[in-house]
């Protein structure tokens, strides 16, 4: 009986140790940038690799969108309000894409510092509101950064 009890304690201790290892390793891994997602600040700091497919997250800077009248080509600037990254894109943009909107851009960072986008995805956050409310908030300049600040 005592042996059984001892065995049971050993098993519980072992299980707890294994779960602790799993939790520790997961927390460690989550601190690292595992899914190649970068903000403009990180790119400016030189953290991002060049010529690799990665994801850039940020907000489309106001008055930065320039469309080529003859083709689909478009360029704009993604900002996190500290640093900017110029982006080039040559395909159809999502409806939700607009200046001040949060976006996730998949593409590669060129050596010239330009980001060549393969896909532009408009990110929506958990803030929903009717247009009148948004206008009112904008008027008082208290619109939450949620107009798209979902870069992080």
């Amino acid at each position: 009986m005592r042996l059984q009890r001892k065995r049971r304690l050993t098993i519980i201790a072992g299980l707890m140790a294994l779960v602790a290892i799993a939790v520790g390793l997961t927390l460690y891994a989550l601190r690292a940038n595992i899914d190649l997602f970068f903000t403009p600040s990180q790119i400016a700091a030189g953290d991002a690799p060049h010529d690799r497919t990665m994801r850039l997250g940020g907000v489309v800077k106001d008055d930065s969108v320039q469309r080529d009248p003859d083709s689909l080509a478009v360029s704009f600037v993604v900002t996190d309000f500290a640093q900017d990254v110029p982006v080039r894109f040559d395909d159809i943009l999502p409806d939700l894409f607009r200046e001040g909107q949060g976006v996730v851009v998949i593409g590669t960072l060129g050596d010239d510092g330009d980001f060549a986008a393969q896909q532009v995805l408009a990110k929506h956050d958990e803030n929903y509101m009717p247009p009148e409310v948004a206008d009112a908030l904008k008027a008082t300049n208290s619109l939450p950064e949620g107009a798209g600040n979902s870069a992080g």
Partner: protein
Amino acid sequence: MRGKQIGMWKLIHKLGSPKWCYQLCGRLQPVFWIAAAALLAVGAVWSLAFSPPDYQMGDSYRIIYVHVPAAILAQSVFLAMTFASVVFLVWKIKLADMAASVMAPFGAAMTLLGLFSGAVWGIPTWGTWWTWDARLTSMLIQLFIYIGIIALRGAFSRPEQGAKAVAVLTLVGVVNIPIIKYSVSWWNTLHQPATFTLTERPAMPESMWMPLLLMVLGFYCFFTALTLYRLRSEILKRESRTRWVQEAVK
């Protein structure tokens, strides 16, 4: 203390008695059907006709009124199945297994609906109907787990054995639920965080979240009503040899 324990046991066994449960389901069923119909009708009209459009997404955001309830149910149903599996494995109450077996197809359907409505919503907002981010991928895995559970039950020629095997698989499959739940906060995903949390007010005005809440509750009531309905026929099927069923059918 001891007397209380015995009382508990009696209650558990009474709840576990198919005949008693059959009658209880019959009595509760109309309540939930009516509640579901009322909630879904009010919620649908409110959300489609009266709640304001989103300032950015316009009317397309209204998919949220299907998408969010479906996604919530997809996970809740699995948790309910997990609970039923534990009850079945520990106390060997067959009724728990019957409940788990009738819930699984509904859970799979809700997962599919969540994925489908998400895809439809994704086209106008994100610009893509599918992306391999953590939330979408873990939800797809959830669908496969549901399908696996349904397939495993069907594969056994002896239902009792299949029931136990399914219960074990359900307990293994529950590891995916926290992954779905936290995928949006652990990784930088395209998917937005949860609309409803227990601790905070939703980040939308009342005119938007009230119909959503009605829809979620309506889905829950619909799920409950459907489960009670299907549980009744499952009880009749499995207990078809007993005298009370033969008398009830007559």
